[in-house]
């Protein structure tokens, strides 16, 4: 059971992770051939500089959202409010940093606490009130942006706070600090899920809620926690987004990012119906979508039709993951080989 090979197999989880990875590699291969200087890396001002680093840096928000979203989806839910929660944490932090004397060590926990509580509010609606997740989180998706705009008075709040700016623009050991943050979160979450029984409970609740409750799991605590965790991830992503542009753009930040995050999670091998989840897969899914975006910008795809290639990639990855499709394709080739 414990030999590295079977561990590796477990990670790949029946190949679903492999297909996302394959999609990412294909895209990178395309970029290698067709985009000049895509992989050029240089050291500027003591840190790495290049398109690939940009992808990792820009993709950090989606990766964080995808981490939280993975657990929510694993319990059979979905969280549409993450974009609005991003707006709230960014707005709160920006306003606190510019208008009060509070230190950053206080501002960041405050902003994150707010989004965790709002996430837990989602969890309450889902688990205690029994509202379907899409609608429960839709409420905060609409209202949350209102709250964020209320905090900033509808303005874009700019700031120059060195510490806060470092969060989204700084470098740690030559790589963007955001990436360090994502890695830390990934490792912490993995450990929490696999070295304790949290992961087991999340999967059990997502797979069969009734049976889990009958086995003595407090299902509502599990749900409350995963939505709260999703709130935490969204809050972090919101801080990065704000820090990145040195401003809190409460009306626009994080728009449509919930869809990117859901996409990343599902492409990464976690089913929307809940149950088994794969954190690393979600990270790869998020990288896939960011690489695609960056590729389209550098390749000069007209912005209006940019959604079309995105659609094609989604369907392609989905089809690759479908066992039925693979057997069918194998069938076609088999026939051709015979004739």
């Amino acid at each position, binding site marked *: 059971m414990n030999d590295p090979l079977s561990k590796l197999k477990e990670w790949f989880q029946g190949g679903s992770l492999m297909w996302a990875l394959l999609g990412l590699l294909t895209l990178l291969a395309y970029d290698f051939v067709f985009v000049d200087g895509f992989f050029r890396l240089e050291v500027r001002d003591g840190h790495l500089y290049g398109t690939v680093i940009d992808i990792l840096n820009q993709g950090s928000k989606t990766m964080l959202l995808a981490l939280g979203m993975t657990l929510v989806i694993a319990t059979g839910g979905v969280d549409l409010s993450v974009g609005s929660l991003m707006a709230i944490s960014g707005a709160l932090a920006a306003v606190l940093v510019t208008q009060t004397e509070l230190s950053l060590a206080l501002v960041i926990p405050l902003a994150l606490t707010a989004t965790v509580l709002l996430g837990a509010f989602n969890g309450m609606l889902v688990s205690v009130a029994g509202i379907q997740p899409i609608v429960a989180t839709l409420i905060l998706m609409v209202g949350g942006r209102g709250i964020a705009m209320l905090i900033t008075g509808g303005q874009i709040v700019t700031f120059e706070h060195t510490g806060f700016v470092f969060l989204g623009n700084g470098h740690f050991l030559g790589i963007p600090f955001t990436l360090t943050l994502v890695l830390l979160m990934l490792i912490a979450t993995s450990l929490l899920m696999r070295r304790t029984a949290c992961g087991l409970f999340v*999967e059990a609740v997502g797979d069969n809620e009734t049976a889990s409750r009958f086995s003595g799991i407090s299902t509502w605590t599990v749900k409350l926690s995963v939505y709260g965790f999703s709130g935490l991830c969204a809050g972090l992503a919101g801080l990065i987004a704000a820090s990145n542009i040195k401003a809190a753009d409460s009306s626009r930040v994080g728009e449509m990012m919930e869809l990117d995050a859901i996409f990343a999670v599902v492409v990464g091998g976690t089913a929307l119906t809940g149950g*088994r989840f794969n954190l690393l897969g979600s990270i790869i899914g998020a990288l896939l979508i960011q690489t695609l975006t960056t590729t389209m910008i550098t390749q000069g795809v007209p912005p209006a039709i940019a959604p079309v290639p995105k659609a094609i990639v989604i369907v392609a990855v989905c089809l690759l993951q479908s066992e039925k499709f693979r057997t069918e394709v194998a069938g076609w080739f088999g026939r051709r080989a015979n004739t």
Partner: protein
Amino acid sequence: MLFGIDVADSGSLQIDGQPCVINHPRKAIAKGLAFCSEDRKGEGVIPTLSIRENLILAMQASRGAFRLLLRAEQDQLCDHYINALNIKTPNAATPIGNLSGGNQQKVLLARWLAMQPRLIILDEPTRGIDVGAKAEIEKLVRSLREKGMAVIFISSELEEVVHTCDRVAVLRDRRKVGELTGGEITEQRVMELVAHHE
């Protein structure tokens, strides 16, 4: 209802002479109760999880999320119950959904036996499983009885009731219509109670 799934309309419950209210399965489990539902698919198995995970679920739930059972303990438990209950599976990592109904049922029994409950409620444990497994489960229930565990065995199959039970309460239309003990338990007596009461 005893297990805290439904709320009682009336009446009271005493355990060890102490009146208590059970409103969630967690509380029931804490009191040493175990309940194996008749709806195996809907309320029992977690289909995509492995046998191991299904087996330790109740135990882990009572320990809380942050005190994970050591992997060695888990494996030991699995090996023990796979052998003891004769669960037919390649290994403990197989998803439970891939097993036959009878073997699934055995894993669920193992889930509760691992808790070493004082009272186990088995609701139609033999429904929809093959004859061999059925006989094994009946045998298991008898051996539990001999070990001194209290078992409430709910069934609509007379034959197995007669074979396994010490005391039979016959319920009809949510009312108790009679109780039999020891030698009184024959298929015919039960049938009589079911057919014409009063």
